Every structure is written in C-alpha cells, then in structure tokens.
C-alpha cells in the first residue's frame, strides 16, 4: 500500500506521514511533529513554485516569495481553520506573498504601445523556435498585466484551477475572478500577437517561416 511503510519501519504508533492527509499533517505540525510540515512542503512545493514563478516572472523573486510563504505558513499554521482545503490556504499564502512583491514594484507602463515596447525589451529575439521562446514571450507579456489580473490568469488559465477555487485562493467573488481573467486576456492578445509576429519576422528564412508566409 504505502511503499515507505515497508522500506522504513515507523516507530510504534506512528503512522507513515506520506499516508496522512494534508489536514492531518498540518494538525501534527501544530502539535509539534517536526517532520509533518516538511512532508506538506514536499507535496506541494512544485505547484507553489509554478504559481510563484508564473506570477512574478522572475526566478529569484519567486524563490524569495516561496520561501517567505512557506515560513509564514509554518508559523501561521494555527490560523488555518479547516474551512478551506490546506492547498487553498497554501496557495493563498503564496499568491499573497507574490502580490505583495508585485505591488511594491515600481510603476508599470500603461499605454498599449508602452506595454508592447516593454515586452520587446524583455524578450530577446529568438534564434530558434521552440517552447522556450513561447515561454519567454508569455512570461514577458504576463509581467505587463496588473498583479490582480496576472494572479487570476495564472491560477485559472495556467494552473487550470476552477474559477471557484481561484476565487477561494484570492478571497474574491467568482465574478471578480472572471472579470480579471477577461481583462487580462484582452490585454494579452495584442502583446502576444505582436511578439509572435516579431519572432516570425525574425525567422522568415526558416522553413517554418516560409511555410507560414506561403500560407
């Protein structure tokens, strides 16, 4: 059933942590189990990292935010009241850590032209096509959105959470999440298409470029 239980006998009366639910782990953590929180972190760190990296668009910032968030969750565990899923609660802490960082940052260009110029500056012209390039484009484009819209799009469109789950994480009504997503997508369309066109112009001699040109 549980491979760890076989490989590593647990002390008597000690259930293997990997078999416990998130809520049980959090409860154990609050009651002083020194390993319980680490197990929670192991379970969810990749998702938390993805959320933070997408939201902040910068690995260093994301690392700081995730670390702060986990430390904060460690300390605030007692404030978890079990009304939401532990994952929702963890996401909330991570997202808020990211939003705090974003909101403190300097002014953001507002006009569409400026947005696009900024995205161009952030996205080096690619010398080959590929996922990485698209990833850079998307990352650069996302950075130009207001933090609230960015967070909503990360949760709903990128992480694939339901609008309701995203609303629970963000602590806003579902309608607000939908509206932020709608406005965010509307802003992303021109930025992404501009970046895409630019990339395609840049590789006009490539086979793919030729194919595209010829329709």
């Amino acid at each position, binding site marked *: 059933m549980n491979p760890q239980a076989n490989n590593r006998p647990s002390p008597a009366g000690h259930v293997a942590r990997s078999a416990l639910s998130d809520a049980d782990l959090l409860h154990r953590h609050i009651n002083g189990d020194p390993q319980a929180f680490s197990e929670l972190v192991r379970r969810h760190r990749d998702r938390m990292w993805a959320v933070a990296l997408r939201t902040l668009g910068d*690995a260093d910032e994301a690392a*700081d935010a995730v670390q702060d968030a986990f430390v904060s969750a460690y300390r605030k565990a007692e404030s978890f009241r079990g009304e939401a899923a532990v994952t929702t609660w963890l996401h909330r802490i991570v997202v808020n850590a990211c939003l705090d960082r974003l909101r403190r940052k300097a002014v953001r260009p507002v006009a569409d032209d400026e947005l696009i110029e900024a995205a161009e500056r952030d996205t080096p012209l690619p010398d080959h096509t590929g996922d990485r390039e698209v990833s850079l484009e998307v990352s650069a484009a996302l950075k130009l959105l207001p933090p609230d819209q960015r967070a909503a799009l990360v949760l709903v469109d990128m992480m694939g959470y339901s609008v309701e789950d995203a609303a629970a994480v963000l602590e806003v009504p579902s309608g607000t999440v939908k509206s932020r997503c709608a406005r965010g997508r*509307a802003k*992303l369309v021109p930025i992404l298409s501009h970046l895409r066109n630019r990339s395609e112009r840049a590789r006009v001699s490539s086979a793919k470029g030729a194919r595209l040109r010829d329709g």
Partner: protein
Amino acid sequence: MTGDTHYDLETLAELAEGLLDDATAQQVRDHLAICDPCGEALADLAGVREVLAAMPVPAMPLGVALRVDKALAAEAERRRAGGPLDPEPSFPEPDWDRIMADAPWETGAPWDEPAAPAGERVADLPPLESPRMVPLTAASAEEAVPATVNGAQRPASPAREASADEAGTMVPLPVSATRLDEPAADERPEPAPAAASAAGDAGAERPALGVVAEDGSVVRPKRRTGSARRRWLVSLSSVAAAAAVVAGGFTVTNTVVADGAQTERQTVAAPSTPAEPSQETLAADVDEPRERASRFVIGESGYNYADAELKANLVAYFGSMPSGGSATSDAKLNRCISKLVADEKRDPIGIDRAYYNGNEALIMLFWHDRSQDLVKVRVVSPECKNLRKPGLATWN
C-alpha cells in the same frame, strides 16, 4: 450593422466569460455573426487561453527546494528552542551568549546561572565577530556583572550613577513588559514601582532608547525628520542588555559601534516588571535565560543607496557611528532585523534605515568572509522583503 464598428477585446472576453448582461450579450453575438474581425478577435482570445494552458509547469529547482528546507529548519530550531509557533507578537529570541561572547569581561564561564546548559544551539555558533569593539576598562568590567544582575533592582548602583553623570542624559525607561531574560531566574527582580514611575517621568521628556518588550512594543521616541545628520538608534531588548551597557560606561560592545563624544548619549536601565508568560514560555526561558537579549545599533542615514555603492567599500557608510540617537519602537523593524539575523545566522555588522533606488529600505551588513573583507549586503523593504538580491561588498 456591418463591420464598421467593432467590439473591443475586453467586451469580447467578457462575453466569453458570461459577464455581459443578456441584452448586451445578444447584441454582441448578433454582431459577431456578421463581423469577421470580431470573430477573429474572439478566436485570438481563445488562443491566449490555450497558450497559457500549454505553458509547462516547472518543478521547483533543487536549489530553491534546499533553500526552503533550510529556512524551515531554522524555524523548527527556533520552535524547539522554545519560541512560540507564531512569533508575530513577540520578539524572536536573540542569542545573548553570542552577543556577549566577545565582551571583554566574558570569561566564557556563565554568570551565576544554575546548571542550565547554554544549549546546543549556542555551542554550534561561532563567536561573534564584531568589526569595532570597544574594550572596557577593567573597572567597568568588574562592575559589569553585578550591574547586570542587580542593576534593575538597584537603580542607584554606582555604575549607573557614574554613567548617568557622564552622559548627563541617561533616561531610565519604564518597561511595560519584560523579557524573561534576566541572567538567573531566581534573581528576577521584583517590580519596582517607584523607580518605574520616576523613570516614566524622565522617559516622557526624552525617551531615547527603548526596551523591546515581549510583545515587541517599545517606548517610541519622536522621529526627527529632515535631519541630514545620521542618527543611530539603539534597540535594546532586555534588561540584561541595558544593564550591561550601563556598566560599560556607554561603550557599546558589539556590532557597529562606537560612541561619539558628543551629546545625547543615552541608554536604558529599566526596572523590570516581569511579564506574565505562559507556563510553557516560562519554562523555556528558565532553560535559556541568556539567549534572548539582543541589541543592534541602527543607523538612520536616509541615504539613497544604489547598486554601485552596495557593491563597493561600505565602511564609509556604516563604519562611523555618530553619537546620539533615539530608540526604535518599531516592532515590525525589530522583527525584520531578527528575521534577517536568523536568515544569516549571525549578527549584523551594520544596519541602516535608508533608501535603495528611491525605495525605503533597511540595509543590513553581515560578515561574509572577514579574512577577505567580504560583507554580505541585504536590502529589504519595510515589509522585510528583499528589494535586491543579497550580494557581496567589501568593508574597507
């Protein structure tokens, strides 16, 4: 209607999310039926969703995972050491042994502490390296211990009187709650109402230094604004620390120090009123009575640092410490400093409340490698978030 007018992307996106009222939605749909550009725009919106959904979900890089583990291990250590799970309301315990390790009178033997061990935590730590230590005279060193132990009970101890005369401005401050960090549990002084009230009167005139109480509150001085002069704040978190400072005749003995010969030298010798801790906390405190005191000298230069300066020699910015100053009662600031100290696992060699690229910032320096004159520079916001990647600079 033809394609002469088009709906903007936002309206189309709202349509797709079902956010438009029925009448408007119907209008837009009717338009979409006959307008190719708007239909393409709608398709573009769907395309954005697809692109976003297709973005790979990266795994947390090993380095970040290790970093998180390390930070949590530090938290766990703090928790094991008796700190509350949620340290928000309290001042995280400083490490008194480390702070005092370089004090000239510190022979290595504990005070008259009962057999309570200093704890593995302390044993692991290297002695504090402080860049500027002001040695005490033998006389003041002799006075240090009694003053530390009994200072709060004996407001008129010779050391204190001498110090007061010398400084002329010493103000004993009342403490609302006391940290349980007196050297020995059985010597914890009783509340001294008379002294406290006298101190209160004096403190009202010039509360220059504060004592950080268990709940993080400190007597807050008025912030002088608009002064170009550097100000240095001393944050004291314990009676023991306060008494030690007094005994030392104002030669602050750790971190960035130095006492200028000018006005406004102040310190605190606070009569203490033990807080009412939970039994749990009390027990922890008895075990580690001396770990909880700390004080850092905090500059408030208001200087606007840029990256170039934070990569070069920093002694000019942090090395000189003017006299005077006022206390920080900023619990948030104190928590932040403690957090960074915990992060770095060592005491800072300099702290400045200033600006970084125009943003309010707390700059903290730690020795990275003293033999190579390398200083680690942390720049954090008032909310204690990194404003800049921790970097290295030189001291001299």
